């Protein structure tokens, strides 16, 4: 409003507007970040590219979780706090299946690994999909007409319940899985920059998932229904779309993604604990907000940026805060985005967000 007043007062014909304090500060922060990155690149180029690759891998993983948040937010405007914990349960389901049902050991042969991985993926996805739909049925659906904060509060409750399901099931320690790929086998190793297979497999699993999701949302009837419900529930209902079923379907898809992410995470990190889902869920939510919540490509873009920032923070040597500060940095970014650009990178400015 203040800017409008200023343009009115300005002499006619003068179109250039002095940028306000908030955008300038934001720009300054981004510039400082870029300067820091370039100086690090100048100091140790090989390390820089190595870290960059780790960041892309992390980002791909975060992207799958972030998509679950953004799908649900897009359709219900609800932050599904329980999503991170569904993801954690997905990791536990995968760990159980790989070690106890299929008896996987360190560095299995590729002919054995691929079917086991695909079967576990299917089990984890279906399991998490069902968990997510159940949570929606019990904790969110009865509160459709309630004040907005009510389902948000039950979401926190559901998150704690799921965490404790994991705690009861696996105890308070780490559940570990074997290395599925020898850590030393690389996809490529050029001029000191190596990219091992155990990282590349994350990308290999994520890309088909993303393509499948894009196909589902853009090209199928059910996807069209999802987009319609996200836009306007009443109008969608009048067009004959079963709104409740579409919402449940969205939760199912989000759960499927969480299950897949759980498997990917557990094979990448080789261990999972009951409280890791919530932490990673918050980071993934930050990614979704960064990209513009409700916006699917935005979630992936945001996840890549956050993954890169995390990797740079933990991997670069020149004046980086280090891994003990990762969460603080990610949440500071969340706060800064919400203050400077609440609509995110790709989102549209909405009256509520701004």
């Amino acid at each position, binding site marked *: 409003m203040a800017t409008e007043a200023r343009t009115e007062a300005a002499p006619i014909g003068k179109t250039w507007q002095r940028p306000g304090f908030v955008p300038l500060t934001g720009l300054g922060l981004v510039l400082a970040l870029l300067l820091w990155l370039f100086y690090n690149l100048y100091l140790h180029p090989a390390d820089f590219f190595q870290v960059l690759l780790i960041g892309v891998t992390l980002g791909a993983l975060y992207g799958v979780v972030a998509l679950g948040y953004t799908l649900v937010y897009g359709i219900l*405007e*609800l*932050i599904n706090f329980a999503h991170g914990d569904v993801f954690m349960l997905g990791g536990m389901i995968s760990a159980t299946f790989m070690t106890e049902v299929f008896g996987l050991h360190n560095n299995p042969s590729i002919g054995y690994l691929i079917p086991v991985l695909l079967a576990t993926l299917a089990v984890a996805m279906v399991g998490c999909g069902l968990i997510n739909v159940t949570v929606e049925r*019990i*904790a969110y659906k*009865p*509160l459709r*007409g*309630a*004040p*907005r*904060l*009510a389902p*948000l*509060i*039950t979401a*926190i*409750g*559901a*998150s*704690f*319940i799921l*965490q*404790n*399901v994991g*705690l*009861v099931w696996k105890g*308070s320690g780490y559940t570990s899985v074997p290395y599925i790929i020898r850590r030393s086998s690389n996809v490529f190793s050029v001029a000191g920059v190596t990219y091992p297979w155990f990282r590349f497999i994350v990308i290999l699993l994520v890309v088909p998932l993303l393509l499948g999701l894009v196909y589902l949302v853009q090209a199928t009837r059910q996807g069209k229904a999802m987009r319609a419900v996200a836009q306007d529930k009443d109008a969608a209902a009048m067009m004959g779309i079963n709104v409740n079923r579409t919402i449940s379907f969205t939760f199912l898809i989000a759960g499927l993604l969480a299950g897949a992410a759980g498997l990917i995470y557990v094979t990448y990190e080789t261990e999972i604990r009951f409280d890791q889902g*919530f932490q990673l869920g*918050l980071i993934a*939510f930050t990614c979704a*907000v960064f990209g513009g919540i409700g916006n699917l490509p935005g979630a992936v873009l945001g996840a890549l940026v956050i993954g890169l920032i995390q990797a740079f923070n933990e991997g670069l040597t020149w004046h980086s805060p280090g891994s*003990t*500060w990762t*969460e*603080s940095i990610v*949440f*500071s970014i*969340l*706060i800064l985005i*919400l*203050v400077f650009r*609440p609509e995110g990178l790709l989102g549209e400015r909405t009256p*509520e*967000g701004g």
Partner: protein
Amino acid sequence: MPGVQLGIGDAWWRGLEAAGLSHARWRSLPQPIRRAVVLGAIGLLALVVMAPLNGFDAAAYVAFAVLVLVLVPSWKKVPVVGKAIVPLLVLGVFAGYPYYAAKLFTMPILGPFPGMNTMVDIAVFGMMAVGLNMVVGYCGLLDLGYVAFYAIGAYSAAWFASPQFSSHFINWGAPDGAIGIGVRGFHVSIWALLIVAAVFTAIAGVVIGLPTLRLRGDYLAIVTLGFGEILPQVARNGQSLFNTGFNLTNGPQGINPVDPPGFGNGLSSLTGGILPANFTTDVDTLNIYFYTGIGLLLITLFCSIRLRDSRLGRAWIAIREDEVAAAAMGVPLMRTKTWAYASGAFFGGIAGAFYASFKGGVFPDDFYFNISVFILCMVILGGMGNVWGVLLGATVLTYLNFEGLGNIGGWLNQHLPAGPHHIDLPLYSFGIYGLVIVIIMLFRPQGLIPSARRKAELERGVHDEPLYDVEAA
């Protein structure tokens, strides 16, 4: 209406109607009689079901008589002092607690009544819950990072009443005998620090609130959550900020020891020993902490109620009910919300400072996100917006957290058929709180003791009801 209708209530009344007691007839009976009947039924049930299990003694009957005396008569109808009687009776029951606690009976399943340590915890968490209630209950802003304020309060007390900054030595009113020989650092009286911590925390509330309060409800929730995650991490990593070697928080070890409260030898001998010179060296340390906690809680309650009825408090409630309408009526949104935040933070700061002094140390592991949800759970369980409900929620949950769950777990392990499993109930406490949150939000969103206004809001859905909608006759 939100929430789920179970249908148990309907079946219940249909059954009673067959026996000649319809719902309408029941409602027409005077309230004291209805309360007496309900309490009598509960008492009878306890006698028939619980006594054989547990064996009540005389103390149980006395406790029940006190309960009847407080709850049954319509004390509010007594002229002039009517409104104050029930709170005073409850206060009396609490104030006398140290004297009769040892004589109380053992509760079935729950075991003995809470010890004095837990009673101090109840007072502290009660303060925090009442503080959070100002933000969540009155103003309707979901704050998921209340633990940040608790942490700021605790650390600001610890900085100025501990050997932390040992390059300086200042003694401003620390109780006699609290500072060891040769110990350096700031040592300011805890009484002054309660105020300092509260002001610090309130300022932090404003700083956190100013950029974020213009965001919509759920965005605000996530931002507060973010602050609630950042501050404990700063506390954990703060033994050498930015590699400068400046030790702000002493890292994971925390700041330890923090000076106890006390009035000093002078004041103590002047009042004939009523005011203790030093809380920790006094004969009954825990009782003194308990009374101090109750005193601070009373101040918090008083401020909370007076604030609620003030112009500012009514503005908060207006914002909670309909932000747009409130803005249209001339309520300055940002300023009012910031005040809600600052007031909630203020009391969180007092509670944190007092707790730091009570525990004699501040440890970063006390400030996890779980604590924020724990306090939020008290507010939701008791009834958002109603201080009495919130206090009840705080009492029940704090007791369960510090003693009750352990006792229940012990009882379960004793009475369940012997198996390979040993149930460690306190380990699952947060799952249980999560369950409590979900069940309350689904079946009784107004909480155990609802505020009349909030209940109406939830049941009629003030937000969505069009103004021109005339109810069909």
